[in-house]
């Protein structure tokens, strides 16, 4: 651009921008930010609502020091590490498969996408049935195949892994569609010239597909991490955080403190801690990807 906008131009553009933002900011401000501020208010007050005594950072110290928090933090970390890379890798793999010329492509695309649009709360009930060690179809089959299924969904060592499987099942189709979209923006000429240069399939993936999908990968990874940290519905239905808190995630702990124990101070504090943590995490991701992404 050649002409530098004058002060009046800039002011009017700022005005335009905020006019475009106004409805969203109003909605978000009133129904998300304001409740969050109220929650912050109760995070610096005594645990029981109504007593209102100012306790400053006491709740934060208490939460960070509590065994429950550390357990849930560890479980969440394990869950995110189990679920995120698998989801993203499977999504990319599926997208590569489904990007070919295929008979029945529409069916296959729809099939992998459907879990993303059905209610997780309800399908988790089916999953719990399927993963029951006594009467579950999946555990029964695994057993027949000689694969140890442990104590099914009730196994303290495998519970998080089973939950992660359901997580992948739920989310992979959605991200595969994102990748499909990304794949279609790569100009075919790149592949053709690579082909002429004698590059094999792996080299073409490594040097064309993967780098040019950088933005998609960034977007998908951020969403995938956020989704994994927020996992709740199927944890609630399938394990309830048990046995002995072995599958209790941060969000589940938050729910339990707020609505089972009625400790709103603790819950609000934990909410803020989770928020800050995930925010830092995705900022880091954002930075990492924005440095890596090649301009093209």
């Amino acid at each position, binding site marked *: 651009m050649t002409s530098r906008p004058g002060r009046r131009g800039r002011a009017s553009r700022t005005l335009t921008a905020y006019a475009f933002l106004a409805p969203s900011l109003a909605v978000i401000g*009133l129904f998300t930010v304001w*409740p969050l501020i109220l929650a912050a208010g109760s995070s610096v007050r005594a645990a029981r609502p109504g007593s209102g005594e100012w306790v400053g950072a006491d709740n934060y110290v208490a939460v960070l020091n509590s065994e429950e928090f550390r357990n849930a933090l560890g479980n969440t970390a394990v869950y995110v590490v189990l679920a995120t890379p698998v989801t993203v890798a499977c999504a990319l793999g599926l997208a590569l498969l489904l990007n070919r010329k295929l008979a029945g492509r529409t069916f296959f695309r729809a099939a992998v996408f459907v879990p993303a649009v059905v209610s997780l709360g*309800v399908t988790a009930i089916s*999953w719990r049935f399927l993963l029951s060690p006594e*009467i579950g179809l999946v555990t029964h089959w695994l057993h027949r195949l000689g694969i140890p299924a442990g104590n099914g969904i009730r196994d303290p060592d495998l519970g998080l892994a089973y939950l992660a499987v359901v997580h992948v099942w739920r989310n992979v189709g959605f991200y595969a569609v994102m990748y499909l979209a990304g794949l279609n923006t790569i100009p075919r000429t790149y592949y053709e010239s690579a082909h002429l240069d004698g590059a094999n399939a792996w080299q073409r993936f490594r040097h064309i597909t993967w780098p040019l999908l950088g933005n998609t990968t960034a977007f998908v990874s951020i969403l995938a991490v956020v989704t994994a940290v927020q996992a709740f519905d199927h944890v609630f239905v399938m394990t309830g955080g048990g046995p002995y808190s072995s599958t209790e995630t941060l969000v589940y702990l938050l729910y339990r403190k707020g609505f089972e124990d009625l400790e709103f101070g603790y819950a609000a504090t934990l909410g803020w801690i989770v928020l800050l943590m995930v925010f830092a995490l995705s900022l880091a991701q954002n930075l990492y990807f924005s440095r890596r992404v090649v301009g093209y």
Partner: protein
Amino acid sequence: MRETPAGPLVYAGLVVISALVLLPLGWTVLASLTPEAQIARFPPRVLPEDITFEHYREIRRQLPLARQFLNTLIFAGGVTLLSLLFDSMAAYALARLDFPGKRVVFGLVLALLMIPPQVTLVPLYEIMSGLDWINTYHGLILPRAASAFGIFFLRQFFLTIPRDLDDAARIDGASHLRIYARIVVPISAPAVLTLGLFHFMYNWNDLLWPLVFTTDPSMHTLPAGLALFMGKHVVQYGLLMAGAVLTLLPVVLAFVLVQRRFVEGIATTGIR
């Protein structure tokens, strides 16, 4: 090469993957057609011995389905339409305009993406009941009329539309409103449609939100009504699964209808 026709191995792989993915859904459908006493069996079997439509008949008997269907449609449809409008406006500003505070606003949107809804539930209830919005359609719809996810999603798409397009339009004297409405949104139609589908399905399936912010049974949505079959001690699996299928049907139908446009569509504009 990506355009080579797929071999039998690829098909076999895809069939296995689809079968695995569809297994829990298939189980849900079969359970909805199985007499309650046969749903849990040992050893577990895929196909039921008897088929029954009793669960569906029972649901029709027990629930005002038409009313709940309408409520769900109003709620999910209202949220979708409003949210598409607001999200796309905000995304336009974040993707196509430079203004002071842009990074802060975007950071805020990103941060809000991560809020587990449980954090704000109690204070939000206070706000809603202070406004006297409990048990109203606008109380259900308006708080969801803008979504951080939607803004983030559309911003990514809008960023990929070449700037030359609006620069040309600017030179022709078009306002931002015009560029937004006539260029950016129409070009992004597939993305908007995808997001619309998402908003619709998310809200269509949502249980907690409509149950918490309505107390009047005549305001219940379909999932809220169906949840009543999940008893404290007795879970009526057959009814629950039949209800799940009923809730699913419109969503799957909607998906199949727009699927083509939608997957192919993102492909043509696409995020990179």
